[in-house]
């Protein structure tokens, strides 16, 4: 009979400690638990214990327990792991010497055997496979995107035929939410963008005494480009994210399933009012942003240089022709569609957990901004070629 290992770890605050000792007697190993196994007593390393017991593996294992009603979950947890190892290796473990309560705690955990197919520790996916999967996912994503646009057009047709199942109240609510409620932030951002454009321009233009052309810069900049772009970014963050979160949560609550079983197409009932609200409101918001941007520019120019408000307005009127005006609004319309698609698609495709809803919202905003910038570049190039 020889004591092979005696394990004593110091207690975390100096009290008595959790002790495990292995005594080998021929082909039998006796494991003795001693000391205090309370929450504040020293750490137990069950992996090391199992390694110690199994080298070399004994035929039988018996237990002794000198711990008197002074243990927490770690003792049954450690025993449970050890007994599982023994069961896998066909080592006979005799727990009859353990206290009654402890025996019952371990037996309860052992009653339902581990399902063999349950545990998942398959091989890790290699890097190349991950890259490949991501590339293939692009195809599915494009497919989904196009399919979504198709469905959306179909439901628009249904709407034109007057058969879409859409509540008018919803549309009005979304119009208020996407349009009216966005005015404060759009006001602030557009005035500031106008100010910035004017400041940046004034430094260069005033060198040539061409301060009056600040009005041209701000007017064209706002109407053709910045008004639509800034508004779209704001709306993507406000409304696009909200759409993804709303639809995502509805999906998680099975509300989308409920609509489908009622025979109501989620496309008509949920996506259409959101899309229409954005398409109606975005051009108006863009127009609003354009004028406020010009106002911001005017504040800087009239304040810094010897240019009157009337001169500034006249110069703006001269340079901003009707096609620049409509170009901005057209961009707004395109961006609105893209934001609604990104938000609704992400929302409808969302999984069922709380983090899925978060991912859908993030994805909606990122997608919207990418779509907006790509579309903006394309439209700007086309407008240049067409001399609009």
């Amino acid at each position: 009979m020889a004591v092979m290992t005696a394990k004593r770890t110091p207690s975390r605050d100096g009290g008595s400690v959790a002790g495990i000792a292995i005594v080998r007697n021929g082909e039998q190993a006796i494991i003795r638990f001693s000391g205090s196994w309370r929450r504040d007593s020293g750490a137990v390393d069950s992996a090391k214990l199992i390694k110690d017991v199994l080298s070399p593996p004994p035929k039988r294992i018996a237990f002794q327990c000198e711990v008197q009603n002074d243990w927490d979950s770690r003792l049954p947890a450690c025993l449970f792991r050890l007994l599982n190892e023994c069961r896998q290796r066909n080592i006979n473990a005799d727990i009859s010497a353990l206290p009654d309560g402890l025996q019952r705690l371990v037996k309860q955990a052992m009653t339902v055997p581990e399902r063999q197919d349950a545990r998942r520790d398959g091989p890790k996916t290699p890097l190349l496979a991950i890259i490949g999967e991501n590339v293939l996912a692009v195809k599915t994503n494009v497919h989904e995107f196009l399919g979504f646009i198709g469905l959306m057009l179909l439901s628009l047709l249904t709407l034109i035929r007057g058969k879409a199942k859409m509540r008018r109240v919803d549309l009005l609510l979304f119009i208020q939410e996407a349009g009216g409620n966005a005015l404060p932030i759009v006001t602030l951002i557009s005035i500031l963008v106008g100010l910035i454009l004017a400041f940046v321009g004034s430094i260069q233009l005033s060198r040539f005494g061409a301060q009056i052309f600040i009005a041209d810069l701000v007017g064209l900049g706002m109407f053709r480009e910045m008004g639509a772009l800034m508004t779209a970014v704001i709306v993507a963050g406000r409304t696009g994210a909200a759409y993804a979160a709303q639809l995502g949560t509805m999906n998680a609550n099975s509300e989308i399933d409920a609509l489908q079983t009622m025979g109501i197409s989620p496309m008509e009932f949920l996506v259409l009012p959101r899309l229409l609200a954005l398409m109606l409101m975005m051009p108006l918001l863009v127009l609003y942003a354009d004028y406020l941007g010009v106002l911001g520019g005017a504040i800087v120019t009239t304040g810094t240089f010897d240019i009157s408000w009337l001169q500034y307005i006249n110069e703006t009127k001269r340079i901003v022709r009707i096609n620049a005006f409509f170009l901005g609004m057209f961009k707004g319309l395109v961006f609105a569609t893209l934001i609604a698609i990104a938000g609704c698609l992400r929302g409808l495709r969302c999984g069922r957990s709380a983090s899925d809803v978060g991912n859908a919202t993030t994805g909606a905003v990122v997608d919207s901004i990418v779509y907006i910038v790509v579309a903006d570049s394309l439209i700007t190039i086309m407008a240049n070629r067409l001399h609009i």
Partner: protein
Amino acid sequence: MSIPDLKSKQHVVVKNMTMAYGEFVIQRNLDFTINEGDVFIIMGGSGCGKSTLLKHMIGLMKPAHGDVVLHDKSLWHCSPEQRETLMRRIGVLYQSSALFSSLTLAENVALPLGEFTRYTASEIRDIASYKLALVGLAGFEDYYPAEISGGMQKRAGLARAIALDPEILFFDEPSSGLDPVSSRLLDDLIISLRDILGTTIVLVTHELASLFAIGTNSVFLDSESKTMLATGSPHTLLAESRDPRIQQFLTRGEYHA
């Protein structure tokens, strides 16, 4: 988690409590005691305030009047820190399991262990596996709640509720959404855990089969009179109560006065 000496100790005392949402009173004059080792049933028709009563007992809602005493300590006439310490000694299984959907089952069980104990990471892993095995979910450590069935989610929720070895376990309608067999198995599991862990159990349920099978004590809430009608073991109530409302409830409406 040592096996307690089974003297009849008072584990929860509800003292002359009134529950209200603002001005709207749900229940008043609630007075009952839950002893150590009891399987205590909170019963009553839909909308009588069973779940609200549970929320008051686990520290989520403050009573409009009166108090709840856990382990001889007031839950509501004390500092928030004291209340938190007290709340850590109870475990709750919510009606919808309330597992954290972004964490695996093992991480769900490990969360309170990591926050409130000084166990090492490997100890916590062992305990989480063990608690999952206790409720029959050995091998499901790495699954996410969305990947398992409703009954398994309930059991995983139970594993999380017993993570910190609580002295009192609260259940909000554990069998809702389960088929009769699964619900029976869950009842059996609750009872065997009570037996081996020595935990006091408080159950909100209106499932007659399970409240007669496992209840040792109960309180009956009535929504019309807005107070409790009786307290005692469900079998005693059925045999001795002359109140038609209790008889109606316990006989599924087949009692005619």
